[in-house]
């Protein structure tokens, strides 16, 4: 349960993402306080905690949307603290934000093609959408010409994940992918994510509140008041931790 011990252990293994001593302010409010976190290669790490404890802020700092006052972020061994979000995306960080952030007045197909921006080098030539995407999310195939903003929440979520996959990321950052979505689709999304991990070996950093999804992860970090307060393997995730950091 000693989270710093876990962190140091993680650092010693081959980590895809290594966050150390991160401090982030939003205006003057101190949102993240000395956050250490590590995502080992090929593993799925889940960040838990109630609304407003700074999980989303942490993810935004990781993808580069928020600047950090101090601390470092390393991706695949390379420091990325000072580079712009688009450069981080091209390095291989795929981001599925909270609220999906589908570009609304752009078609589904175009939204998917935008995902290709992150995969460098594939600039020229006819852009096409690989068939795997439709195997994962069959619903998208029939929607290609619809406007992104017209999809339902669940469809948007699937689109957002598919879009992130288009860039063939090494790290997938998912912010509450099941939030506000019908239970049946939640299952589909979870299954898809599991399959993605199995087939591509991508590392995942996930913010989630649905418990049984949390349990699918390899490791968890619990946040409260902008800091990591507990971490460990999800197999050891106790009711006490859940009650303290998640329940109402």
């Amino acid at each position: 349960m000693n989270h710093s011990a876990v962190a140091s252990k993680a650092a010693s293994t081959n980590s895809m993402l290594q966050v150390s001593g991160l401090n982030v302010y939003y205006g003057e409010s101190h949102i993240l306080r000395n956050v250490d976190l590590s995502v080992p290669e090929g593993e799925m790490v889940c960040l838990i905690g109630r609304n407003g404890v700074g999980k989303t802020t942490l993810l935004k700092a990781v993808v580069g949307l928020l600047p950090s006052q101090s601390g470092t972020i390393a991706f695949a061994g390379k420091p990325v603290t000072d580079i712009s979000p688009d450069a981080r995306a091209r390095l291989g960080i795929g981001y599925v934000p909270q609220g999906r952030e589908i570009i609304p007045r752009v078609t589904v197909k175009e939204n998917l093609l935008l995902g290709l921006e992150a995969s460098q080098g594939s600039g020229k030539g006819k852009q096409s959408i690989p068939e795997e995407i439709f195997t994962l999310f069959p619903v998208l195939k029939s929607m290609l010409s619809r406007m992104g903003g017209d999809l339902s929440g669940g469809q948007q979520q699937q689109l957002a994940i598919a879009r992130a996959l288009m860039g063939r990321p090494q790290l997938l950052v998912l912010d509450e992918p099941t939030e506000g979505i019908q239970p049946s689709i939640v299952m589909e999304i979870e299954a898809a994510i599991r399959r993605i991990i199995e087939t591509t070996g991508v590392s995942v950093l996930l913010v989630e509140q649905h418990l049984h999804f949390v349990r699918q992860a390899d490791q968890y970090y619990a946040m409260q008041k902008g800091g990591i307060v507990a971490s460990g393997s999800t197999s050891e995730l106790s009711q006490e931790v859940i009650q303290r950091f998640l329940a109402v």
Partner: protein
Amino acid sequence: MTAETSIGTVGRKRQRRQTLLMEGVAVVVIALLLIFAMPALLSGFRLNLLGRFLALAIVALGIDLIWGYTGLLSLGHGIFFALGGYALAMHLQLRTAEGLPDFFTLYGVEELPWFWQPFHSFPFAVVAVILVPSLVAGLFGYLVFRNRIRGVYFSILTQAALLVFFNFFNGQQELINGTNGLKTDTTEIFGVTVGSSQGQLVFYVLTVPLLIATYALCRWLTSGRFGRLLIALRDDESRVRFSGYNPTAFKTLVFAVSGGIAGVGGALYTVQSGIISPAAMEIAFSIEMVIWVAVGGRATLIGGILGALVVNFAKTFLSDQYPEVWLFFLGALFLLVVTILPEGVLGWLRSQGVKQMLGKSKKVSTYSSLEQNPEEERERENTEN
């Protein structure tokens, strides 16, 4: 606690009174210098220049009031400037002519148009100098603010209004002599020819107290609760609204006041330059007014005055010596003020002072924060690094 605060209040009041007194003394000294020393030191030509620039400084105060304090960038103050100038010039025209002013006969107008009639009266003309621009500004402001048109939309609309007034005045030869405008120099008023050196001295001397009066008015408007509300409107209009104030009324009033001030400046400028014409409503002139304030420093009042004087003297000097360079210089001034010196000279000096005292720079944002999307801003900052 009550004892403590009341002592605090008294101390604060005393301090405030003291600074106010110091300021008053400084202003009087400067005024006396301007009125008595300058005419002795400067040639008539230079004095006339100074007088006109002081008149422009009055306009700058009006701009500072709405832009620096209230956050409304008007690109149409030439309208109010010109209206003030026309009001006075119309009176002076009627003073010379036995019957009709000369130009009317040129266009075959035989009867004085109705709106000229009241300008026979001097008191009416003086009141009109302030009131006509105020009313026009107030009406325009009301129509625009009522719809919550602000920021750049407001600026664009004021510019369009300027163009319309320019066209109107330019086009109505029979009514106000079109492009030629109205001359004032040869008129006699109270036994003095306006254009004579004696007359010019009188107007110069008149400009100084009026500038000070305007300054005092602006100080009064911007210092009390009203002034704080203007700043609040600038910083966060929506918060003001949720506090129960109606922003439209306040903005309309302050725009009208600013228009009236521009009118006074316009009238004083007119008698000292001898002519008012639609050229005063050219787009470039109104934008130049803004740069005076920006150079001096927004929301400082004094900055506006200094800016008007400095920029205009620079203009006179540069366009004398290197006419080609002037536009380059002015253009560069705009770029410089916006990118490197956004707080103007005075604001820069102040922030440097504060920096030394507190060890960190004080950022004065004179724009409504609502115009910016904070997230976008942050992302920009981030990507620029």
